[in-house]
C-alpha cells in the first residue's frame, strides 16, 4: 500500500506525456502507408529471385530448343567383310588346323610380333559361317559358332578368315562442282537410300538413285541453300540425324562429332565426383560442426570458424591444381599406378575438402541455435555427451543441417574448375573412380573456352547440358526441401 502511495506521486508527468501522445488515438484502423510500401518493396526483393530463375530457364531453354531441333551430321558407316590381315606384318590370317562343326576353338599360328586383328565381340566369317569372337590370342580364338542365322560347318585347314569391319563412307573419286554422280569407297553404296541427304564439307546433296554394284550415287547438288563445290577423293561423307530427347537422356556415349549425344558419360562423371565429394565433406564437415558447437571453447571456435570460412574463398582453380599436383600423386602412391593422372576420385576428394567449410559453418550455426534447455534436459536424463548430441541436438538442428548438405551438394554438382582441371577431359562412361571422366560442368567449360564455332550443334549442346544441370539441382532441391519440411514438422 505504501508503495502504491509513492507511485501516485510520480505518476503525474507520465500521465501528462502519454495523454499527449495518445490523444486522438482510437481503436479505428489506421492507414500505415509506410508499412504497406515497405512490405511491397520487400515483396519485390523476393520477386527478383523469380526473375533469376525465369532468366535462366529462358536462356537455357531457348538454346536447348535449338539443340534439339538442330540436325547433327554424322559420318556414314557401313559394314564390310575383309580378309583378316596382321597389320604390322601384312600377313593374312587363315586356319592353322581344320575345324569341325562343334569345336569352339579356332586355332591360328601367328608370328610373335603380330598384332592381333581380332578383338572380343567381333564378328568373323569363315566359308560362309559367321562366328563371334569370345576371346582372342595369337594361338587361336574362342568363338561362338553359327551366329547371325548362319550354320555351324566344318572348315578345312588354311581356310582364310574374314572379319567384319565398320568403315566410314568416303568419297571414292574427286568430284567436280557440276558432277551429279558421285563415286563412293568400295561397298559403301549400300549405306544409302533414295532421298537421303548427304553432307560433304559444307555442301548438302540429295540422293536420287543408288547404284550398289558400281558404288555410285546419282545426287542433286547444292541442296538446302548450300553451294555445289569441288570435293576431292577421300572426303568423309555425313548423313543427318536430329537429336532426340530420348537419345539425349539415355545414351551412354557423348561424341557430337560422331552423332553420339547421350548425356550419361557426363552425368555419370558428375554423380561420381559429387558422391566422393559428399563422402568426404558430409562426415568431416558435420564432425567439425559438432566439435565446434558442442566441444570447443568459445576461444577455439572464434579462431577456427574464421579460418574455415577463409577456405571457402580459395578460388576453386587452386583446389583444382591441388587435386592434380598433390592428391593424385598421393593416391598413386597409396593405391598404385592404376590411378590415372586425371581421375574422378581425386577430383571428388578435393572437392570434398572444398565443401567442408561450407557444410561445417552452416551446420554449426544450426547446432548453435538449438536451445540449451534441450541439451540440459537430455543430460538430466542421464545421457552422455555423445547421446545428447545424437538424440537431442542433431534431430533438433536437422533442418539447418539439411540446408548445409543441400548447399554442399549443389556446390559439388556445379563445381567447375576442380573437375575441369583434375577429373578428366574426355567423355568417358566408366564407374571406375580411378579413371578420368568428364563432368557436365567440365564439358561446358572446356567446349565454351575452345575453338568451337557458335550455333553448331556442339555449341548448343552446352545449353542442353546446362538446362539438365539446372533441372537436376531443381529436382534434388525439391526432394530435399520436402525432407527438411517433414523433419521440421516432426520436431
Amino acid at each position, binding site marked *: 500500500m505504501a508503495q502504491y502511495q509513492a507511485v501516485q506521486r510520480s505518476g503525474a508527468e507520465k500521465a501528462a506525456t502519454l495523454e499527449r501522445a495518445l490523444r486522438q488515438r482510437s481503436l479505428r484502423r489506421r492507414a500505415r502507408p509506410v508499412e504497406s510500401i515497405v512490405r511491397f518493396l520487400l515483396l519485390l526483393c523476393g520477386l527478383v529471385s523469380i526473375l533469376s530463375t525465369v532468366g535462366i530457364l529462358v536462356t537455357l531453354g531457348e538454346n536447348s530448343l535449338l539443340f534439339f531441333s538442330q540436325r547433327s551430321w554424322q559420318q556414314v558407316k557401313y559394314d564390310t567383310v575383309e580378309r583378316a590381315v596382321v597389320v604390322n606384318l601384312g600377313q593374312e590370317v587363315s586356319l592353322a588346323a581344320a575345324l569341325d562343326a562343334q569345336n569352339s576353338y579356332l586355332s591360328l599360328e601367328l608370328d610373335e610380333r603380330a*598384332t592381333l586383328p581380332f578383338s572380343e565381340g567381333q564378328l568373323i566369317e569363315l566359308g560362309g559361317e559367321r562366328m563371334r569372337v569370345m576371346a582372342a590370342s595369337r594361338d587361336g580364338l574362342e568363338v561362338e559358332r553359327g551366329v547371325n542365322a548362319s550354320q555351324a560347318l566344318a572348315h578345312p585347314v588354311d581356310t582364310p578368315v574374314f572379319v567384319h569391319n565398320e568403315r566410314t563412307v568416303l568419297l571414292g573419286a574427286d568430284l567436280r562442282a557440276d558432277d551429279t554422280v558421285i563415286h563412293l569407297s568400295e561397298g559403301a553404296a549400300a549405306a544409302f537410300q533414295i532421298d537421303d541427304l548427304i553432307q560433304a564439307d559444307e555442301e548438302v546433296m540429295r540422293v536420287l538413285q543408288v547404284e550398289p554394284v558400281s558404288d555410285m550415287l546419282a545426287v542433286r547438288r547444292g541442296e538446302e541453300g548450300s553451294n555445289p563445290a569441288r570435293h576431292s577423293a577421300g572426303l568423309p561423307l555425313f548423313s543427318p540425324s536430329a537429336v532426340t530427347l530420348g537419345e539425349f537422356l539415355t545414351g551412354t556415349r557423348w561424341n557430337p562429332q560422331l552423332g553420339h549425344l547421350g548425356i550419361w558419360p557426363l552425368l555419370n562423371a558428375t554423380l561420381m565426383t559429387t558422391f566422393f565429394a559428399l563422402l568426404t565433406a558430409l562426415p568431416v564437415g558435420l564432425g567439425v560442426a559438432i566439435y565446434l558447437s558442442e566441444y570447443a571453447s568459445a576461444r577455439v571456435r572464434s579462431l577456427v570458424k574464421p579460418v574455415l570460412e577463409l577456405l571457402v574463398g580459395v578460388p576453386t582453380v587452386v583446389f583444382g591444381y591441388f587435386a592434380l599436383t598433390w592428391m593424385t600423386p598421393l593416391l598413386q602412391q597409396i593405391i598404385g599406378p592404376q590411378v590415372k593422372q586425371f581421375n574422378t576420385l581425386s577430383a571428388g576428394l578435393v572437392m570434398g575438402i572444398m565443401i567442408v567449410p561450407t557444410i561445417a559453418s552452416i551446420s554449426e550455426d544450426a547446432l548453435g541455435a538449438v536451445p540449451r534447455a534441450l541439451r540440459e534436459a537430455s543430460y538430466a536424463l542421464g545421457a552422455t555427451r555423445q547421446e545428447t548430441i545424437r538424440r537431442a541436438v542433431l534431430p533438433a538442428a536437422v533442418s539447418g543441417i539439411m540446408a548445409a548438405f543441400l548447399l554442399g551438394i549443389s556446390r559439388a554438382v556445379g563445381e567447375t574448375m576442380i573437375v575441369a582441371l583434375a577429373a578428366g577431359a574426355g567423355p568417358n562412361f566408366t564407374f571406375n573412380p580411378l579413371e578420368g571422366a568428364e563432368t557436365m560442368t567440365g564439358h561446358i567449360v572446356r567446349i565454351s573456352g575452345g575453338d568451337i564455332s557458335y550455333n553448331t550443334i556442339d555449341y548448343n549442346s552446352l545449353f542442353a547440358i546446362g538446362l539438365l544441370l539446372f533441372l537436376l539441382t531443381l529436382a534434388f532441391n525439391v526432394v530435399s526441401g520436402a525432407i527438411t519440411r517433414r523433419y521440421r514438422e516432426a520436431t
Partner: protein
Amino acid sequence: MMNFRTILYLVAVLALPFAIVQADSHTLAELVAENEQLTTLQMLVDSAGMGDALAGEGPLTLYAPVDEAFAALPDFAVDWLLNNPDRLAAVINQHLTGDMTGANAVADPLDADNGTLQLIDALLLPELELTEVIPAFVEGDIIAAGSSTVFPLSDAIATRFRDEGYAGNITVDSIGSGAGFERFCAEGVTDISNASRGIKDAELENCHSIGRSVFPIRVGTDALAVVINSANDFADNLTLEELARLFSTANTWQDVNADWPAEPVERFIPGTDSGTFDYFVEEVFDKDQAPMLDAARTSLSEDDNVLVNGVSGNPYAVGFFGYAYFEANRDILKAVPIEDVAPAGSSVDDVFMYAAPETISEKPQVGEFLNYYLAVVNEEVEAAGYFPADAAGLNVARLLVAAATGG
C-alpha cells in the same frame, strides 16, 4: 587450301594447250593481255602504267599470278593498290625481279620475245615498309580476344606496346577461337580476333552481315609435337601407320609394336575444332576423325596444359599438341620423331589474327597497333614458343594492314 590449289592445277592444265598456241613471237605485255587467266594482273599493270616495262628490253622473267591468286587479296586491298601507284609498282616489280618463293607454278613457262612468263598460284609481295608507330602518340582503347594459343604472343606484344609508351587501354582475352569470332563477327565488340584456325563460313557471313570485311593476318606458325612421358624409353620413333594405330585402335602399346610393353595406352589430344586436331586428322587419318574420337581412354582438351599434365602423369600416355607447349615442358615430356623426323619448325598450324578495315578506319589505334605488331612480331614470336611466319605470309599481312590503314 589443298582443294584450292588442285583447282588451280586443273584450270592451268586445261588452259595449257590454249596458251601454247598463243605463244609465238609476242612481248610479255602482249602475252599477259591475251591470257584470260591474267585479267587482274593486266588491270593492275595498266593501272600502274607498267605496260611499257613489260614490253621493253629483255630478258625479263614475269611471275604472273593467275586471277585466282588474287582471291587471297580482299577487294579493299586491291582498291588500295590501285590508289597507291607507288606501292602497286613495287608489287608488280616484285613479280619481275623476285623469285618464286611461296608460290607454285601452275603451268610450264611460256617464252616471249623479251623474256619468260611463268604462271603462278600466289602473289609475290615485296616487304612493304610499315608505317612507323610511336606508341606514346596512340590513344583510344584496343580490344583483342580469341584463341588461347595466340594469347601468349599477343599478350607479349601488348605488354611491349604499353612499355614503350602506349597509355590507352588494351585488353587481350584468351577465350578460344570460336568465342573470339563470336565477339568479333556476331557481336562486333572486339577489334582484333585471335585465332588458331581459319574463319568458318558461318562466321564470315556474320562478319559481313555487320559490315566487317574481315581479313587474316598471319603472325606465326606452330609445329605439331607428338609427345610421350619422359619415362617412356621404348617409343623412340613412330611410323605414320603406327601413329594412326596408337591414336585409334591400339589398346596397349604392344598392339602398336609387339616389342613394346602390354600396357594400356592413354591418349591426350586437342579439342576437335582446333587447328592442331584438324591437321592431325588430315595427315594421319586421311580426314576421318571417327577412329580417333572413338578410341578408348582419350581425353580432349582445348587447354594445352591439361594435355601436358595428362601425358606427364602416366608413363604410358601419349599426346600431341603445339610445339610451343612441348618446348615449354621439355623437362617433363619427350617428343617422338615421326618417320625419323623430329618435330621442329615444320609449319602445321598457322597463328592468325583477324581484323577488319571498317574497324580500323573507325579506330585508327587498331591499325597502329597492328602495324606495331607486325614490326616487332618476329622478335617476340620465339619467346612465345612459335616459329616465325614465312616471309611470304608476313608480306601478305603487311600489305593487308597497310591497305586497311590506308598507309
